[in-house]
């Protein structure tokens, strides 16, 4: 009888230390493996040359240089000024845009420029490499 009572008492005292250890390990794992980054996507069509050429609407030529400098229809603009320029000109959604990019321009600059265009519903964008002669002209 005494033995049984003692046995019951032992059973009631289950150690929670291994449980706490395991929970801590799981917590560390989730902290290290979890990402809170909210990914987005910038979608654009990849138009073929003939598709762009056959476009009935207006066309706009933009050259993007390494430091973020833009040449739009022969004018030198910054990224913010490009937004103002586009707002001013009121280009329609069917405007074919040729975006010529200097080979050293990082993707972030290209995305910023495309953001400005897409915010104004200009989605017919053709990304092209800027030919060497003009790129050197822009560098200087």
């Amino acid at each position, binding site marked *: 009888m005494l033995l049984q009572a003692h046995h019951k008492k032992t059973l009631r005292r289950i150690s*929670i230390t291994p449980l706490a250890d395991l929970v801590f390990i799981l917590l560390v794992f989730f902290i290290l*493996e979890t990402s*809170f980054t909210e990914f987005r996507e910038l979608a654009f069509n990849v138009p073929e040359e003939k598709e762009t050429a056959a476009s009935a609407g207006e066309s706009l030529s933009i050259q993007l240089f390494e430091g973020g400098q833009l040449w739009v229809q022969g004018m030198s603009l910054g990224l913010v000024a490009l937004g103002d320029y586009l707002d001013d000109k009121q280009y329609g959604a069917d405007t074919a845009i040729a975006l010529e990019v200097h080979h050293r321009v990082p993707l972030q600059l290209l995305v910023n420029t495309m953001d400005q265009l897409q915010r104004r519903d200009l989605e017919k964008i053709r990304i092209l490499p800027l030919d060497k002669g003009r790129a050197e002209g822009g560098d200087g």
Partner: protein
Amino acid sequence: MFDLQPENRKPAHLEGNILPVINMTFLLLLFFIVVGTFSESLNRDISPPQSLSEALGEASAVELELTREGRLLWEGEETTVPAWAEGFRAEGMALPEKIRLRADANTPAAQFIPVLEDLKFLRVARVSLVTVNDGNVL
């Protein structure tokens, strides 16, 4: 000498004190499980550019990765666009019309544009660039 009473009491007292800690840990654990998403499949060498664009679409889209050095990866393996297309066709699948491209923000155009040109050659009509928005977008 045989009185075990104080020794028995001490651990019980300690366990009582760590219970709130364990509760808190469980809550934190639940928080990370529910709110976070696993990042194990993401290439940590690639940090996508910032943009204001819309939220990421379908999860099943075919995704290529482009590092800042110009290495193109598909399912973690280095490839080229023609080799990727060949592998895709070899598995009896049609090439998708839409590709998701997870490229590094510092990838130069010299690396990025040829990939676009190759995709255009394969008649991929739409490319969606994976971006992030942490509020520092121009």
